[in-house]
């Protein structure tokens, strides 16, 4: 059985040998290069822009600005473009780094050099640089498109319940600007041929990109092909079309040659999104026995000046714990910031930091163990959908996590655990992420040489999805994974679900599963109908498949290979499609993935820096398709959130709002030495209500709650409650020694 085996990644060899081809590696004959000029000011307008020196520089083919750019087609809103303004739209400047010009030249160096020669005369206006400066503007957001979550909601009477509660806490939590900081910068290679456009681009959703690109360039979608090979890190920032993709296509049309545009490392921090700063005010009321009575959660996040973009940090508030009343209010405040983007664990990441920290603070107020407090507020059903959760093994996750971690050794109060010069602290948090899904299509072809191929447009963004989907196809067809090829990342292929929102396993996985089963079924029927087949005349349910062979389940030696069957019948192949339908779920349940995090931190008392020495994560994600890629993804998610908890911050200048750490030297992500022992395990129980494979999304729930678990451990170690991430050393020097 291929499913459940710890298979190595199918693209592992290419990646470790350097043979793997990413978008920036794509080459076409005659290709030339574009470079972007970003605004040096955060607000204002271009009074004049002088491109004469740039145009005269060696190798330059074109310089485009708002004054001479070709006309855009459509509108950003109608096309559901990420921003409300197409690049180079006009002379107005709304954020630092905004594109003011694009240079196209014969080499990358020539383009970069000429970009430096573009002289801009700015009219500068004062910027709103920080969330604090923006707070007077806090307002209820107007959604550009359909609302994704309630921005104002009350269930029960939270104010009255708070007033009546035995214990109340009121706290403020903050998260900073976070960058996705992918290793791979946004890259595009655009090529026109006979009115058709081919775009190689770094994308988490090629079919989603196509109509936007086609619309903005004024060509029918069927004349646009989008290709995304291996993606070198995305974390949500490649979910949408960004300016450079459109600009590369414009440039290629302008100069009549293929144009490559790879943004610079600095532009990675301003050109394709970040998570804006979020302020969260939480009021929590509970009774002495620990039962939660009310949570009132008010958030304000920074939004670009041109449109409202609310962050869903209230996502966990009403759905994680049993509550008698809930109140949420989501507001946004305008800042001169580059356009944000959805980021791995949107809403749940920052939201669970606040809720998970507040629960911890409450546990000390009440004198109840943090795990026990969560158990007492276990939620059996989705409170808004009013349906029981399917596959909720959260209590088992607590038990297994506490056992593996040794939670019983935890001292009841902070500053009680020392080891030499180190303070030692234990912390924990729950994890939860609603199980999103979307329509997905895939094709599986069984061929007369005994191999098979999966075709679906999904992108490999580093999660191992090509491997797990190959296993799914192997499970369905009974053909070994090493005999199965994969074609992906191309709009000429059937449309998968996007590779964001932890959807691949559930949605695309189901499509591949159904396609594989259908292909096998067609083969089985062919055999049954074929008088020359050893399986002739058998009832369909008696036909099994394994090792590339169909056989009689009651007499396994009776059977034949796909190869023999197809060749004898003169069939080159069997091609079948699978479709994941949104109606495919069991409607009696609500769906989410769950988990529990346990963290040990150590803090040297003389030089206080938080070290995560042990972390235990236990997750309930239904069936695990591949323990190796699953563990890898969970460890990666924990490290990712560890960075956000302890060091990641896209520092902004307090006067201009410009990011002052736009480099991986200064934007600190964890290095290997920062990562202690990470123990990942699963409470594995297939959730067939969610999907026929019984498997659910994994990529995000593993990172939800880690921030709180670490912050809670820091408090337990040293008695300092940090409510303002990241927990850098400057926040630990004060306080008792």
């Amino acid at each position, binding site marked *: 059985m291929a499913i459940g085996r710890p298979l190595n990644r199918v693209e592992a060899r290419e990646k470790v040998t350097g043979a793997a081809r990413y978008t920036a590696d794509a080459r076409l004959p005659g290709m030339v290069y574009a470079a972007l000029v970003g605004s040096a000011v955060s607000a204002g307008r271009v009074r004049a822009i002088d491109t004469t020196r740039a145009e005269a520089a060696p190798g330059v083919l074109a310089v485009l600005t708002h004054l001479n750019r070709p006309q855009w087609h459509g509108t950003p809103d109608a096309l559901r473009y990420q921003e409300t303004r197409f690049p180079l739209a006009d002379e107005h400047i709304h954020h630092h780094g905004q594109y003011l010009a694009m240079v196209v030249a014969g080499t990358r160096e020539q383009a970069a050099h000429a970009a430096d020669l573009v002289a801009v005369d700015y009219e500068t206006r004062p910027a709103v640089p920080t969330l604090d400066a923006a707070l007077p503007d806090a307002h209820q957001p107007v959604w550009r498109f359909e609302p994704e979550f309630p921005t104002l909601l009350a269930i029960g009477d939270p104010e009255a319940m708070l007033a009546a509660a035995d214990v109340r806490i009121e706290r403020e939590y903050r998260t900073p600007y976070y960058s996705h900081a992918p290793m791979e910068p946004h890259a595009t290679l655009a090529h026109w041929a006979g009115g058709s456009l081919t775009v190689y681009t770094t994308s988490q959703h090629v079919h989603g990109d196509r109509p936007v690109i086609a619309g903005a360039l004024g060509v029918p979608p069927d004349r646009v092909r989008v290709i995304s090979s291996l993606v070198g890190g995305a974390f949500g920032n490649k979910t949408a079309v960004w300016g450079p993709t459109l600009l590369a296509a414009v440039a290629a049309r302008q100069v009549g040659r293929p144009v490559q545009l790879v943004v610079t490392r600095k532009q990675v921090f301003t050109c394709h999104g970040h998570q804006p700063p979020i302020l969260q005010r939480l009021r929590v009321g509970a009774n002495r026995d620990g039962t939660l009575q009310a949570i009132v959660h008010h958030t304000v996040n920074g939004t670009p000046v041109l449109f409202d973009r609310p962050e869903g940090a209230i996502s966990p508030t009403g759905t994680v714990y049993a509550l008698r009343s809930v109140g949420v209010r989501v507001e946004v405040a305008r800042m001169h910031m580059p356009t944000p983007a959805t980021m791995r664990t949107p809403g749940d990441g920052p939201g669970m930091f606040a809720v998970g920290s507040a629960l911890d603070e409450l546990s000390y107020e009440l004198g109840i163990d943090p795990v026990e407090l969560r158990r007492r507020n276990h939620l059996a059903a989705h409170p808004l959908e009013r349906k029981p959760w399917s596959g909720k093994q959260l209590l088992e996750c607590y038990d297994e996590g506490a056992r593996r971690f040794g939670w019983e050794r935890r001292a009841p109060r902070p500053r009680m655990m020392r080891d030499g010069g180190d303070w030692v602290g234990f912390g924990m948090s729950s994890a939860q992420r609603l199980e999103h899904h979307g329509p997905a299509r895939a094709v599986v072809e069984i061929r007369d040489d005994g191999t098979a191929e999966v075709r679906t447009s999904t992108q490999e963004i580093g999660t191992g999805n090509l491997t797990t989907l190959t296993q799914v196809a192997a499970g369905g067809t009974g053909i070994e994974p090493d005999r199965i090829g994969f074609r992906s990342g191309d709009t000429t292929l059937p449309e998968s679900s996007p590779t964001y929102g932890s959807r691949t396993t559930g949605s695309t996985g189901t499509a591949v599963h159904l396609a594989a089963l259908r292909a096998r079924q067609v083969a089985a029927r062919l055999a049954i109908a074929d008088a020359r087949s050893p399986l002739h005349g058998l009832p369909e349910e008696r036909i099994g498949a394994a090792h590339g062979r169909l056989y009689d389940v009651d007499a396994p030696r009776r059977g034949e290979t796909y190869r023999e069957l197809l060749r004898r019948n003169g069939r080159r192949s069997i091609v079948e499609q699978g479709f994941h339908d949104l109606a495919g779920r069991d409607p009696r349940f609500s769906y989410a993935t769950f988990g529990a995090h346990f963290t040990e931190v150590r803090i040297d008392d003389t*030089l*206080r820096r938080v070290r995560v020495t042990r972390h235990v994560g236990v997750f309930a994600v239904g069936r695990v398709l591949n323990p190796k890629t699953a563990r890898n993804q969970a460890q990666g998610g924990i490290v990712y959130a560890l960075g956000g908890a302890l060091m990641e911050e896209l520092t902004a200048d307090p*006067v201009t709002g410009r990011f*002052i750490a736009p480099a991986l030297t200064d934007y600190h992500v964890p290095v290997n*030495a920062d990562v202690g022992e990470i123990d990942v395990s699963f409470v594995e129980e297939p959730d067939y209500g969610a999907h026929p494979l019984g498997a659910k999304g994994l990529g995000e729930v593993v990172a939800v709650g880690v921030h709180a678990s670490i912050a809670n451990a820091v408090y337990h170690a040293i008695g300092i409650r940090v409510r303002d991430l990241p927990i850098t*050393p400057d926040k630990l020097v004060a306080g008792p020694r």
Partner: protein
Amino acid sequence: MDTFDYRRPASVREALRLVAGHPDAAFVAGGTDLVTLLRDRVRTPGRLVDINGLPLDGLRWSRDGVRIGALCRNAVDDPRLAAAYPVLVRALRSGASPQIRNRATFGGNLLQGVRCPYFRLPEFACNRRDPGAGCAAAGGDGRLLGIFGTSAACVAVHPSDCAVALVALDATVVVEGTRGTRRIPVGDLHRLPGDTPHEEHALRPGELVVAVEVPARPFAARSTYVKFRERASYAFALASAAVAVHSEHGVVRDARICLGGVAPKPWRAHAAERALRGERLDAATVEAAAEAATAGARPRPDNAYKVELVRGVVRRALTELGEK
């Protein structure tokens, strides 16, 4: 990046000739810092003189100490160096990443640019980059900036770990110019910003660092380097201390304490050294020295935490030496 004239001389004499009379010429060795400054147009030399072909690498030992070639890479792996000057090897190993250490040189390490984000982003005003332009860091985010030796014109910190250790070892740089050879104590190599932060070091135009001489001192072998940073590796110091102590009969005769990550140059903590001389290296002395190391600190609200870090790195380093 701007265009420049690129030269690769084969001798020191030729290198000096190539920069003589070219005030916009710059030497490049490992390039680990200069290339990023070129790329971001923080530095815009008209001529780049690549000295990697010069015979300036290798260590030369003598009774008086060791002479380290300016092109010696920061990944220098020499057991004798580690035994004679532990503080130096620890400082080198705490810096950058293995890839950068393999490439970066001693001369370049000493002369790397300051680590002020406002210096490195040309969109901001910076007196060091552009004399008289003003200092955006003054009203900006100063969490990483200096608490000693800064001025109204500049609050940047020098990032080198190696230089901090070399100051603690009384090391000297040997420079060659068309007018001959000079020796400059490493402690005098970097200048405090005052009103002229663009005058970063004591080299005269056209001079080339050819070597570093580290003398044999009684305190050199009992020395260490403690670096504190935001993550476990591959980050500049928030604060660091190079400490060397010579004791006789349990009493400190001589000591060096030099701080990194807190000033525009390696910051010699003379008061802390005085607190050690004539004392036994016990907990009380360590505490007194750690406190004295903060003398003269002028932090801002956003980097006041560095004062405590200074106490911490000095305390940690002295405690480590006291246990030896």
